[in-house]
């Protein structure tokens, strides 16, 4: 399927769900009860309309939208980074900024910059963490966990 068609379908579905959610929002107890609903509701309807327009446009034109390709190696890098980020978020407040950030940076660097460069990776991870910690804690008095 062409990318524009996929995007159009997404817009219609998402706009539809959003509109339904908007209709289900609680009414305001003062003033016009529908006041908090008008704006989101019109956005949902607009998104559906744009989705339909995009599909019509991509059906009409031959060149609109290409078939998307997701290169395998890039997907692995993105998925891997996201997994490491999730672990980082989980550890962040539990073991504190310095330890979690050093582990995170070292693992992301190893993952992206390959294990054989471990000396560089480790140096960058440690110096980045300490530098950030120093700038935020000492220069800007922003407390990190």
């Amino acid at each position, binding site marked *: 399927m062409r990318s524009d068609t996929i995007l159009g379908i997404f817009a219609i579905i998402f706009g539809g769900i959003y509109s339904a959610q908007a209709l289900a929002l609680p009414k*305001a107890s003062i003033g016009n009860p529908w006041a908090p609903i008008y*704006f989101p509701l019109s*956005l949902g309807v607009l998104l559906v309309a744009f989705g339909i327009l995009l599909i019509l446009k991509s059906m009409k034109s031959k060149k609109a939208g290409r078939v998307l390709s997701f*290169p395998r190696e890039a997907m692995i890098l993105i998925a891997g980074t996201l997994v490491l*980020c999730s672990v*980082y978020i989980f550890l962040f407040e539990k073991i504190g900024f310095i330890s979690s950030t050093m582990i995170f940076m070292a693992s*992301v660097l190893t993952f992206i910059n390959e294990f054989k460069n471990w000396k560089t990776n480790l140096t*960058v991870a440690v110096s980045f963490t300490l530098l950030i910690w120093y700038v935020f804690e000492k220069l800007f008095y922003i407390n990190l966990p």
Partner: protein
Amino acid sequence: MEILGYLSQGFALAMTPLNLVWLVLGAIMGTVLGMLPGLGPTTGIALLLPLTFTMTPDTALITMCAVYYGAMFGGSRSSILLNVPGDGAAVAACFDGYPLAKKGLAESALAMSAIASFIGGLLSTIAFVLMAVPVARFALRFGPPEYFTLMIFALAATASISKEAIVKGFISLTLGLMISTIGMDYQSGVLRFTFGIMELQTGIDFIIVIIGIYGLGEVFINFEKLAVKGPGVELKKKFGRIWITMEQWKRSWLPILRQTPVGFLIGVLPGAGGTIAALMAYNNEKQISKHPEEFGEGAIEGLAAPEAANNAASVGALIPMMTLGVPGSGTTAIMLGALMILGLQPGPLLFQQHADVAWAVIASMFLGNVVCAIINIPLAGVLVRVLAVPPRILYPLIVGLAFVGVYTINFSTVDLTLLMIFGVVGYLMKKFKIPTAPLILAVVIGQSMEQSYRMSMMLSDGQLGIFFRTGICNTLLVLAVLSVIWPFYSDWRKKKKAGTIKK
């Protein structure tokens, strides 16, 4: 005279040691960030935003502006040396900058682009000084309906930059407005789309959206380039004297002066920005030139004109943001947001209630241009070494910086999860070729847009006629409609022109 008085006060504040230090640091960071391919001023300011939280408003704004035009100066370094633009606005600098470098004239190209940027930036700062106060005074007449229509114009113009992507631009815009509806509705206290998550009650901070889309999203998109190992261009590390010849100056001074006002005006308009200004300036000069065949082969004026124009555009873009409080681009939207965090409402009242801050920033732009010229001419040889940092180390650093930056906004890990989500959203938007600027703009001004809409409706007792009541409203609405029609019209005109030539 009044303006000169304000300006001298501005200089006094801008030249305090702290502000000067940040001005220089901001300009250096901006130049370096602008140089690195894939990282433009928007990403740069987004990543450095958390640093400004503890600053006073004047220092924060001076720093951000310095990063902004520093990036405009720096963007062309990698265009000239590697044929890879540091940001969109530096694309035009590749056309003649890289051929010049290949001819062995890299020093002249580096110097000329910095000189042109300097002149473009300086002249448009003077124009800024002359225009800011009248525009701000005029904007004092704006009530909620005028603001609402102004925002409609800014959003419509940003969304409809190209005919091909116009529907996608509006999808991006609508998604941005949808994000801005999350959280508590300030007028009625109703919770909207929070799904029981307490942290969402105050809404999604737009900085998370920005850092997600421009920081993480850019990194993800660049992972695709990591996967494909190109032949790579040898980076020149030894430079002779970075300066231009008299002959080169003679060819370039007029194009610089001609294209600066073009760039400035394009910058003032919402939607269009540095990239369009630079490309337009390049095409203009190519059309006027007596030797159009030299363009693309290393014509020095083909480098000078777009460089002057994109710096002029970056100064012009600050006018609507500072005087009207309505930004016309992704970068200025971020700056507006940052100011709001600091408790300052940019807009016409900024020049009355916080005249010191406004004029300090303007004065700093004069100083900043000088600083950037110094950084980019004598120090160019040193700074371009940054380009040698391997991307495989650079990208993890950006990811780390993005996480720390976002955490410091609310000290909540929910924000970090949102950051990841918006990183993926940013990646997908780039893949589907959906413009990101309309979304960012909508996220930043969405809430005030809804509020001004509802305030107008309250004023008029629910009558939509209020949006057509004054001349200002009508003009802005007509401009909004025109900005949507314009890409179609110019495309039709181009086709017609091509058709007549064929015949």
